[in-house]
């Protein structure tokens, strides 16, 4: 009974939400960037192969062709180029998707086993909800086209289109008229994968003590409303873009954003219990599984080929291959530099630092992967790798407790990577600095506001008892590695 009543409640809520989105996508003004959006029962008819185009072109009367077929008629080579470009965006989106597994693994590997289910849940939740809210609001808030609400600073979002039915709308959204590199759908899905990343970064920094529900709300707000704002400033064609700011794949827009949002949340939360002892000593809290952390970093590195490589926004050969080279070399240099730095500073080579170093190098090159040449890219990676070790030590020294080094990896190295474009990548140093500082600051303040409000309303930290016992049992009633159990 209870079950059925609850179920009815859930389905009502969910149906309502979706109905709302439906409604707004159907009756609202056309979403910016989409010509029209009248619902359509099926889109099976959209498939076209250039091959066919030519054949039918000879035989069938032109008026029977579908709009995209008509568009591509006589442009078989352009169609092929568009197909490879769009395919790359889609594959790149899948690669960025797998970064979320990377985050889940790194974050759970570098924390205690009693909080593993919680961390995994948070990461699973964020990527899911991030895609949905980006569809419902974020995409159009971040890429407003000409529909700015407050000139070049803020645009109100709206749901993505549901389908395109008018021939004109089809052509202008689903062919190279929309963009030489991708369809409207390809554009959306690639950007959607990016969106959840920022919130995921926060997840690692607040691990082992943040209350689940407020975190879920805060992270959802961040990814839905805040990330698109700063995103619009640059990639949406906003004020930073107009100033000539350069941030190729998001050292600042994604990583520093996440890093500084994390910093605010960490400041509000405070350190984990018994991390900083009364006598001033720092008690390390060991990560429970190095294989998990390593799997995570390799998954992130793999995903970065989509993150940076896809940001070429086409399969243009020079761009993609150049970005692959700089990304690889900077990541590798970061890993080597952090290994050696930890070896010298900390006596023994620290695997967790080597892993952080790889990520630091990758974050560092993200802003200039297209604009920086391979040898300077290595230098960017080396500096990031050294920087991340020092930064981790520094934050620990000032008692800012970041279990996985997210603030250092994404925040600090995100800043570094962005200004590095001003040094090695032909960017304007001042503008680069301005850009990375203003977005970092905005992310910090927005996060402070959101998590500050949540702290005031419901609290954001679990009880000391729950922290001792672990959030897996406290929040989920589910251990990550349940062992022996009474057998009846």
């Amino acid at each position: 009974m209870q079950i059925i009543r609850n179920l009815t409640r859930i389905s009502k809520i969910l149906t309502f939400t979706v109905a709302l989105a439906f409604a707004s996508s159907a009756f609202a003004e056309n979403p910016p960037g989409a010509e029209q959006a009248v619902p359509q029962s099926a889109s099976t008819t959209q498939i076209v192969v250039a091959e066919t185009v030519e054949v039918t072109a000879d035989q069938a009367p032109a008026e029977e062709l579908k709009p995209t077929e008509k568009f591509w008629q006589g442009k078989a080579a352009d169609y092929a180029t568009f197909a490879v470009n769009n395919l790359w965006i889609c594959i790149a989106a899948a690669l960025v998707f797998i970064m979320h597994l990377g985050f889940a693994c790194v974050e759970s590997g570098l924390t205690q086993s009693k909080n593993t289910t919680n961390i995994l849940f948070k990461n699973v939740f964020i990527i899911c909800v991030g895609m949905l809210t980006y569809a419902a609001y974020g995409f159009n808030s971040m890429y407003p086209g000409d529909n700015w609400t407050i000139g070049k600073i803020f645009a109100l979002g709206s749901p993505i289109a549901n389908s395109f039915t008018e021939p004109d709308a089809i052509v202008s959204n689903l062919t190279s008229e929309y963009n030489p590199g991708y369809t409207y759908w390809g554009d959306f899905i690639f950007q959607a994968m990016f969106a959840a990343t920022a919130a995921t970064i926060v997840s690692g920094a607040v691990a082992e003590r943040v209350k689940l529900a407020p975190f879920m709300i805060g992270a959802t707000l961040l990814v839905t409303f805040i990330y698109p704002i700063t995103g619009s400033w640059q990639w949406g064609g906003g004020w930073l873009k107009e100033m000539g700011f350069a941030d190729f794949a998001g050292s600042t827009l994604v990583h520093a954003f996440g890093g500084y949002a994390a910093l605010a949340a960490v400041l509000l939360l405070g350190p984990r219990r018994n991390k900083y002892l009364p006598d001033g000593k720092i008690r390390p809290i060991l990560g429970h599984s190095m294989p998990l952390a390593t799997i995570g970093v390799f998954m992130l590195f793999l995903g970065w080929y989509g993150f940076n490589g896809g940001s070429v926004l086409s399969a243009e050969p020079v761009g993609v291959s150049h970005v692959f080279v700089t990304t690889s070399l900077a990541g590798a240099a970061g890993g080597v530099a952090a290994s050696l730095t930890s070896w010298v500073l900390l006596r023994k080579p620290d695997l967790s630092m080597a892993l952080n170093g790889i990520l630091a190098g990758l974050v560092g090159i993200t802003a200039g992967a297209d604009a920086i040449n391979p040898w300077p890219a290595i230098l960017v990676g080396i500096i990031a790798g050294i920087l991340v070790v020092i930064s981790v030590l520094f934050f620990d020294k000032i008692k800012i407790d970041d279990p996985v080094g997210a603030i250092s990896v994404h925040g600090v190295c995100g800043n570094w990577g962005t200004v590095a474009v001003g040094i090695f990548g032909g960017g304007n140093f001042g503008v680069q600095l301005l850009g990375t500082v203003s977005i970092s600051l905005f992310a910090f303040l927005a996060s402070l506001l959101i998590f500050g409000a949540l702290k005031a309303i419901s609290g954001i930290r679990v009880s000391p008892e729950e922290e001792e016992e672990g959030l897996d049992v406290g929040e989920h009633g589910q251990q990550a590695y349940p062992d022996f159990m009474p057998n009846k």
Partner: protein
Amino acid sequence: MKKIEAIIKPFKLEEVKEALSELGIEGMTVSEVKGFGRQKGHTEIYRGSEYTVDFLPKIKIEVVLSDNLLERATAAIVKAAKTGKIGDGKVFVYPVEEAIRIRTEETGDQAI
């Protein structure tokens, strides 16, 4: 009956087991423990913070045996487990009041 509890270095388990088997001891119970003692642990650094690992992995062997085997068993354990280096471990002897084999309900020396 007595119970011997021996805390030994993990890699000595097989040798101790064989030494006991040679005495005709056919049963024992083993568990993984952490030992704190004169053998100081090591100081390590994790992400920049020093900490001391002063609980070192040891193996605990428990054998319940009849009084007449006690001396030979302790001697055998000591011999097999010794490396001469600090941290070799301890042998403790406790009184046992009763032993029962669950399967047969035999008690006393029969049970072990």
